[in-house]
C-alpha cells in the first residue's frame, strides 16, 4: 500500500517535472535570433517589429582576423584607400586641423565595474570581438607629406588623457573631451606636441559606471558654444534612473563660463556631432537600445532640434513604449519625436562626416558618411562598413549605399571596425579603425597625393 502510494505520488511529481521542462524548451525555442533584411530599416520610416524578450539574448560577435598581404578595405570604383597610419593604440576618432594636420584620438573606455553576474559574461564574450591593444589615452598628430601619402611627421600630440574622444579647435583654444571633463589647451598653428597643462572648462558625467563613455565634441560656427554628446549610463536604465542624470543628451556648453544646458535629450548614445551646412542644423548619429530583438531598435542619423526629446529610455521612434522601463513617463513619451533617418538595427554608428570637401565626385558633395562599427547581438552581422547617405536641401534624399566595405572577410571575421570619421583639408575621408589600429584615407583615384601642409 505504502509502495503504491509512493509510486503514484512520484509519477505525479515527474509529470509536473516533464511539463515544466517542455515549457522551458518551448520558451527557448521560441526566441528568433535571426534578423530580417536591414534594407527595410533604412530611411525615414523603418519597419519596427514587435519587441521580443529573451532568456539568452542573441550574441554574435565577429571573430578577429588579420588582413592578408595586399588586402585592404573595398572602395567604390574611381576611389582609392590607403592606410595613413598603422600600429596605433585603439584609435577612436580623427580630427582634421585647419593646417592639414590630422589628430588621432587613441582611447578606450575606463574599466567597467561588475554590477551584475551578466557583466562578467558579456565582458568575456565581447572581448573576442575587440582589439587586444589597450587604449593609448593620448592624441597622435599626423602631418601629410608629398609622394607616398605616408605622414612626414607622426608625433605624440597630447598624452595622459582620461578616455578622450571629442576634439574641437576654436581659434587658439583646443578642447579635448575626456570621459569626465572638457579640457582646454593652448594651441599654435603648426605645433606637433602640446606640453602645457590643460585647464578644465567643465566636468562631464563620468564614472564610476560610465557605460557609454565617449564624449563627442563640436563647436558652434561662431565659436561661442560647444556641443557635447553624452551617452546613457546603461542599456535601458538597469543601473537605476538616478545614474542617468544629464546623460543620454546633447549638452550645450558656454565656452566662456563652462555653464551648460541640455540642448536635446532622450538620445541613448549620441556620437559624432556635425553641422549640416545648407540648413545650419546640428546632426548626430545615435546608438539605440539592445535586447529587444535582432531588428530592434534601429540606430539612427538625425538632425537635432533644440529642446527636443527623442524617447530614451521610455520610448523609441516616437511613441513605441519600451516595456522594460518602470515607472513610465507618459508626459515625456507624448512629446517624444522620431529621428530623421534610420540606419537599421545594431549597426553601431559612431562616426559622421557631412562631406564638404572637393576631392570626391560631385555626387558625394553635401551628403553624409556614416561609419558603422558593427553589431554584436544580431545574426547575420550588420554594419562593419562606412555608408553614404545622399542629402538634398539639407536632408537625406535616398537610401544609404555602401562606401567602404570589406572589413569583414568571407568567413565573417572582422579585420577592422570603422569608428570616427573626418574630412581632411584636401577632401580625403579619414576613417579611424579601432580593431585594425589603423587610420584609413579614401580619396579619388585621379587626385594628386595629399599636398604638403603649411609649415
Amino acid at each position: 500500500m505504502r509502495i503504491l502510494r509512493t509510486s503514484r505520488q512520484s509519477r505525479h511529481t515527474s509529470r509536473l517535472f516533464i511539463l515544466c521542462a517542455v515549457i522551458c524548451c518551448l520558451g527557448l525555442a521560441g526566441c528568433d535570433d535571426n534578423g530580417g533584411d536591414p534594407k527595410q530599416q533604412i530611411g525615414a520610416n523603418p519597419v519596427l517589429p514587435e519587441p521580443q524578450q529573451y532568456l539568452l539574448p542573441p550574441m554574435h560577435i565577429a571573430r578577429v582576423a588579420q588582413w592578408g598581404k595586399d588586402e585592404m578595405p573595398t572602395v567604390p570604383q574611381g576611389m582609392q584607400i590607403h592606410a595613413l597610419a598603422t600600429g596605433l593604440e585603439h584609435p577612436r576618432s580623427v580630427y582634421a586641423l585647419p593646417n592639414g594636420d590630422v589628430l588621432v584620438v587613441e582611447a578606450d573606455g575606463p574599466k567597467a565595474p561588475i554590477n551584475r553576474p551578466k557583466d562578467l559574461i558579456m565582458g568575456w564574450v565581447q572581448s573576442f570581438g575587440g582589439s587586444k591593444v589597450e587604449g593609448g589615452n593620448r592624441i597622435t598628430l599626423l602631418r601629410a607629406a608629398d609622394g607616398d601619402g605616408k605622414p612626414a611627421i607622426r608625433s605624440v600630440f597630447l598624452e595622459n588623457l582620461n578616455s578622450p574622444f571629442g576634439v574641437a579647435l576654436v581659434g587658439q583654444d583646443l578642447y579635448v573631451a575626456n570621459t569626465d571633463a572638457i579640457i582646454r589647451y593652448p594651441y599654435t598653428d603648426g605645433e606637433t606636441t602640446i606640453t602645457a597643462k590643460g585647464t578644465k572648462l567643465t566636468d562631464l558625467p563620468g564614472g564610476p559606471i560610465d557605460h557609454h563613455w565617449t564624449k563627442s565634441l563640436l563647436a558652434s560656427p561662431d565659436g561661442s558654444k560647444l556641443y557635447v554628446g553624452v551617452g546613457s549610463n546603461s542599456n535601458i536604465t538597469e543601473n537605476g534612473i538616478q545614474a542617468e542624470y544629464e546623460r543620454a543628451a546633447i549638452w550645450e556648453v558656454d565656452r566662456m563660463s563652462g555653464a551648460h544646458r541640455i540642448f536635446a535629450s532622450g538620445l541613448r548614445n549620441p556620437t559624432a556631432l556635425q553641422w549640416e551646412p545648407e540648413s545650419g542644423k546640428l546632426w548626430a548619429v545615435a546608438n539605440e537600445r539592445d535586447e529587444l530583438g535582432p531588428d530592434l531598435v534601429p540606430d539612427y542619423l538625425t538632425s537635432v532640434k533644440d529642446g527636443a526629446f527623442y524617447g530614451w529610455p521610455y520610448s523609441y521612434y516616437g511613441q513605441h513604449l519600451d516595456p522594460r522601463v518602470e515607472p513610465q513617463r507618459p508626459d515625456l513619451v507624448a512629446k517624444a519625436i522620431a529621428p530623421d533617418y534610420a540606419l537599421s538595427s545594431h549597426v553601431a554608428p559612431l562616426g559622421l562626416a557631412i562631406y564638404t570637401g572637393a576631392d570626391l565626385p560631385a555626387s558625394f558633395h553635401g551628403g553624409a558618411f556614416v561609419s558603422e562599427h558593427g553589431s554584436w547581438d544580431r545574426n547575420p552581422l550588420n554594419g562593419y562598413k562606412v555608408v553614404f547617405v545622399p542629402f538634398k536641401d539639407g536632408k537625406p534624399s535616398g537610401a544609404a549605399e555602401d562606401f567602404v566595405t570589406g572589413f569583414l572577410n568571407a568567413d565573417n571575421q572582422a579585420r577592422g571596425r570603422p569608428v570616427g570619421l573626418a574630412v581632411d583639408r584636401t577632401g580625403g575621408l579619414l576613417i579611424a579603425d579601432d580593431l585594425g589600429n589603423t587610420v584609413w584615407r579614401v580619396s579619388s583615384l585621379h587626385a594628386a597625393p595629399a599636398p604638403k601642409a603649411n609649415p
Partner: protein
Amino acid sequence: MRENNLSSTAKIGGHPIHPMLVPFPIAFFVGAFVTDLIYWRAPDAMWETFSVWLITAGLVMAGFAAIAGLIDFVGNRAIRALKPAWPHVLGNVLALLLSLINVFVHSRDGYTAVVPTGLILSGLVVAILLFTGWMGGEMVYRHRVGGVN
C-alpha cells in the same frame, strides 16, 4: 534496524554534508523572492541587482547541496525506497532548473527582469522549496535518514 539502513554516504565525521549546505540555497532563494517583491512594489534597480546576485549565489550553493544529496540518494537503496525521497529529489531538481531560468530572466535589463516572469519564478521556487524542505524533514525527523549509528 532502520538506523543502520538509512545512513548517509556523503558525510564528514558521521555528519551528513547535505543538511549542512541546504540552508544556503533556501535562504538565498527566499531572499531573492523578497527583493523581487520589493522591486515589484518600488522598482529601484538596486533591488533587482540584489535579486540576481541572490539567485546566482543560490544556484552555486544549490549545486553543491544537490551533489551531496544525490550521493546519499544514489548511495543507499533504503533511502530511495522512502516515500518522501522521490518528491524531495524531483522537486529540488525542478527548483534548481526554474532558478536557472530565473537567473537568465533576471539578467534582462530593466523592469521585465523581474515583473512578471522573474517574480513568478522566484515565488514558485519558494513554494517548491517549502514542499521539498518538508519532505526532507520527513526523511530526517521521521525516518532518521543520516542518523549516526
